[in-house]
Each structure stands twice: as C-alpha cells, then as structure tokens.
C-alpha cells in the first residue's frame, strides 16, 4: 500500500519544542500536512473539528495524557479507527503493555530519527 504523504497528521505533545522536532522530522520524511495540539484535551477538540488521518501523541502530558487520549479516541465511534502512534520516553515493558491493551496501533520510543519515525508510520498504515 502506497503511503499518502498528504495525509493529515496530528502531533500531540505538551512541549512546544518537541512538537517542532517531530514536525521537522515529518517534513524530512515528506509529510506536508501537520496539525499540532498541546495535550489530549486540545487534541480531541482538533479531532472533532477537522479531518485527521493519523495521530502521533506523547505519553506524558498534563490535563489529558496520551493513554487517556488513546482511550477517548478508541471509545468514540467516529474516531475509533484512527491509527494512533504513541511517542514515549518510557521504554518500560509495563507501559507498552498498557498502551497495547488500550488499543494503540504502534509506539515509538524517544529518541528517534526521521527514518525510524517514517518506518513506524508506514508500518502502522500498512497494518490497518
């Protein structure tokens, strides 16, 4: 399956710098349409108001963290099928198990390169 580099990607992270870093990496990988949100609450607002094809979300965030956002997305009829890539600095097994149980499509452990991010996105889209 060909990956659509024009798909709308939502990047969720409370650190503005990390959003910039991920945006840069996505642009390096050829993705053009990127929307940002600063936490899970802001992400849900974006998801309700515009078409998003792929979510990349940090785990640790105030207000609503990545795991809570994932659960909210999976519980919503209109959003439940969206591919969800969890970004985390926590490579701990327990967290990964928790995310898988909650229905994460894939996860990526920080730090990562543009190549690794791109591979993860492609793998996630192809597995749908």
């Amino acid at each position, binding site marked *: 399956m060909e990956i659509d580099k024009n798909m709308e990607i939502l990047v969720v992270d409370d*650190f*503005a*710098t*990390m959003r*910039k*870093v991920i945006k*840069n990496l996505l642009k390096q990988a050829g993705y053009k349409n990127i929307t940002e949100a600063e936490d899970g609450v802001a992400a849900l607002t974006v998801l309700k108001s515009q078409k998003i094809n792929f979510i990349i979300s940090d785990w*640790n965030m105030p207000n609503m963290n990545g795991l809570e956002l994932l659960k909210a997305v999976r519980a919503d009829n209109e959003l439940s099928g969206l591919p969800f890539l969890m970004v*985390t*600095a*926590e*490579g*701990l*097994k327990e967290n990964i198990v928790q995310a898988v149980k909650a229905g994460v499509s894939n996860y990526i*452990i*920080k*730090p*990562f*390169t543009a190549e690794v991010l791109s591979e993860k996105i492609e793998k996630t889209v192809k597995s749908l």
Partner: protein
Amino acid sequence: MDVRFINAFLEGTINVLKTMAFIEPKPGKPYLKKDGLAKGDVSGIIGLTGMATGSMALSFSEKSILKIVSNMLGEDIKEINGDITDAVGEITNMVSGVARKNLESLGLNILGAIPTVVSGKSHSVSHVMGGPSIIIPFETEDGPFVVDICMSMVKKK
C-alpha cells in the same frame, strides 16, 4: 555508586544527543563532585524512584546547548530562550528514559518524575538526597556539559 547507573546515563546521553541533535559528545573520566565544580548555564533535573532513588541533572554550558537545540529544531538559536529550556526538559526526560530502559534490562526498575529546568549563568546543582554525586563530564565542539548523578539502591526491609 553502582557503576551500572553511570554506564546507563552515559549511554543514554550519547544516544539522545546523537539521534536528536546529530552531535556525538565525548565523555571524560567520571569523578566525585566537589563544590565549585561542574557548573552550567542551563540545567535539567529529574527525580528517580523505585529500586534505586536519587536524581540526575544535565548541566549545559550556553554555547553547547545553543548548538544542540539549534540542531534539534533545524533553526539557528542565538540566546537562551523558551525553546532552549523546553528542549532541555525534553532532553533530560529522554536521557532518563533511555537510562532507565537500560537499567530495566539489568533487573532494576526505576521511575522518573517530571523534569525541572533552571537557567542562570554558571550555576551549580545540589541534590536533595545529599549523598555523594558523580559527575560525567562531556565535551562537544561547541563547549562542555556535565551529567550529574546522585543515586543509591533502596535497602530491602
């Protein structure tokens, strides 16, 4: 201090800066921290709990962190600003994450708190635990930085 902690944070620091900022810092010989040494201009500090407790700080010289964050963001940053402090928090978080994953593979489960960032010309970090801390000095082409670790194993009751 358990050498496994030193190795985990040393490896984590190199891994994060190499991957995210395309910089390969050169580690020097670790030493026991003494007053007046290991100063930095921006520091990220993170508390650690679990099978071992303590804290870890990354203290960067201004020049080194400007270059690191400029590389991470793909833009030229000339002064310490919000982007820099934000990035130092994230770098601290990532180094702690990689180190804790390495320690987990050795059977040591450790959790990390939310990092704090302080900035100010030539400051020094004090760990609340008050135990001896080990400094791992690093050199980059744009200046030095240090990793400052204060950790000890939790005694079984």
